[in-house]
């Protein structure tokens, strides 16, 4: 197999949360041009798989990641306990990180144990496996601005090599000041894809992924294009545009210069 040979999977479910885009149904309508994007802060539901008290206490990143995964899994009618998961994000919980670093810069360095265990990058992934009662492999990947592409490549490898139905959850969140001045992610946002190694009655589209040197596809809508550029997980928006239109086609998304990812979508 050479560098040009595509990786293949079938998409069975999609989840989206972004500013003005509360779910895949709303996103699909906007990407099809049927609805105008109304700018609004991202809405983060309390994840249904956590006990109510824990769901309320959960940080924004946990709410975001779990809600994205649950939407895609429900779309594909999947048993969440059986799914391998790949969580991909350009960072962690910025508020938690800020609170820890602020406390550690004072005389009293006795940080909260809960803050500490929530500081691990796989915190949302850990809450997912607990809530989903899943003993399947669970991954957390970071490649900064290239995190969506990196997560997709690992998820595709689990689908293609392990023949494992895999849920990819790519998400990012804003950082509070003073970190915000160093990393300007605008809001919580992300996308989730449920991927299978075979076509099934639940398949929405076939997806092929290959390395490419082409420039990334840009979105015509200025607000969507700004989101694509600002939020690493939303580098996937050109893929969602193809999926929304339910037409066969190819697109290119940003990965890690000089490598980009060429995606070919064939609706089922």
């Amino acid at each position, binding site marked *: *197999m050479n*560098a040009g*040979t595509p990786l293949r999977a079938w998409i069975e479910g999609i989840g989206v949360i972004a500013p003005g885009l509360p779910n895949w149904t709303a996103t699909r309508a906007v990407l099809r041009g049927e609805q105008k994007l109304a700018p609004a802060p991202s809405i983060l539901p309390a994840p249904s798989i956590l006990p109510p008290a824990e769901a309320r206490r959960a940080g924004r990143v946990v709410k975001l990641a779990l809600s994205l995964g649950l939407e895609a899994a429900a779309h594909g009618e999947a048993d969440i306990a059986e799914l391998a998961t790949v969580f991909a994000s*350009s*960072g*962690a919980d910025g508020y938690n*990180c800020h609170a*820890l*670093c*602020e406390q*550690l*810069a004072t005389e009293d*360095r*006795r*940080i909260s*144990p809960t803050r*500490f*265990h*929530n*500081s*691990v*990058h*796989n*915190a949302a*992934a*850990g*809450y997912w*496996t*607990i809530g*989903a*009662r*899943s*003993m*399947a*492999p*669970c*991954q*957390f*990947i*970071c*490649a*900064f601005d*290239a995190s969506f592409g*990196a997560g997709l*490549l*690992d998820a595709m*490898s*689990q689908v*293609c*090599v*392990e023949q494992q139905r895999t849920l990819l959850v790519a998400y990012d969140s804003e950082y509070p*000041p*003073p*970190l915000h*001045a*160093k*990393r300007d992610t605008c809001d919580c946002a992300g996308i989730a894809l449920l991927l299978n190694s075979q076509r099934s009655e639940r398949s929405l589209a076939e997806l092929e992924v290959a*390395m490419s040197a082409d420039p990334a596809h840009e979105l015509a809508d200025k607000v969507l294009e700004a989101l694509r550029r600002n939020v690493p997980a939303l580098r996937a928006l050109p893929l969602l545009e193809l999926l929304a239109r339910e037409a066969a086609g190819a697109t290119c998304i940003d990965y*890690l210069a000089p*490598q980009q990812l060429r995606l070919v979508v064939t609706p089922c």
Partner: protein
Amino acid sequence: MAVTPLLLSAYTTSTCLGRGNAATLAALRGNRSGLAPCRFETVDLDTWIGEVVGVDDQSLPDFLSNYECRNNRLARLALETDGFAEQVRAAVARHGPARVGVIVGTSTSGILQTELAYRQRDPVTLALPDDFIYGTTHNPYALAAFIRAYFGLQALAFTIATACSSSAKVFAAASRQLALGTLDAVVVGGVDSLCLTTLYGFASLGLTSAQACHPYDATRDGISIGEGAAFALLERCMDPPAGALLLLGSGESSDAHHMSAPHPDGLGAKLAMQRALDAAGLAPEAIDYINLHGTATPANDSAEGKAVSALFGDRTPASSTKGATGHTLGAAGAVEAVVCALALTQDFLPGSPGTESLDPTIPIRYQLRSARANLHHALSNSFGFGGSNCSLVLGVAP
């Protein structure tokens, strides 16, 4: 499903035991520990740590000055040891820069840089100092990006950050990319460096010992945090020469139990070990040595011991080497893979410095002192917060 073995064509580790494989081997054979009472930075905690000598004497090449932080300095120290960097450059010459990937693990990357920056905030605006760069120091990807830039690579690169299983899981992820043919060689490994977040954080959970940690001891009372780096160059190899070191299989699982405590019966740990054995196509009897996760917390060693006992009984020699290196967190998986590599190629069973009176409630064959032995297959366990588990099976080609 049994997988095709992969060649570890080069490997190296640097921890508090010393810089490189020879220093590590001598310390392990001599049952020496590198742990010492904590004197790191301004940390005021009654605990022991494993500090790597000379990290801050390293400096990064000028064109990589944006990456300056303790974690990347430790990465460079390790890359330039045991001829590892030369082996990577040779692989790049063989395969091309677009065919050599980087998949590495860390838990805290260069967070120390952010901790220090928060002490230098502007008193009025509270802004962080101008020279603080988040993306190339603190961000988890900073480690993979540094290595990719250091070798001028153009292929896939990412960081796995699943706490203390991170740099075991990199071997599994790299195996999949090599199986798909997206890459011809992968720099895998892990680097974690001392910082206030983990020292004060594990202390806040009551998980740090006031002594040097003593895994699987009846009196064990917590971890000793260490820093460390380890790397391996992973490649496909159709016909490995006799004595070559191979990755035979890996297994990943989740506990689905608790964020910072293992499943009490080690169910996730057992599943990871079983999956690694299945991937290697080996029965438990074929394993000659187990490098345990063995953090020396009461809960970890008890849970892991149950899982090992359930799969291996009390036949297979097993030890935790964290009494020697400390718990190197996100680097532990790679450090201990190299410990297994040394055991397999240098014919010895590593012991467990600091452990004196074994916990009688854990019915496994625990190796207290290093011993000569001819090994064919070794298994290494790494488990992390979030209930993230990974086991690796390594072996020597017959």
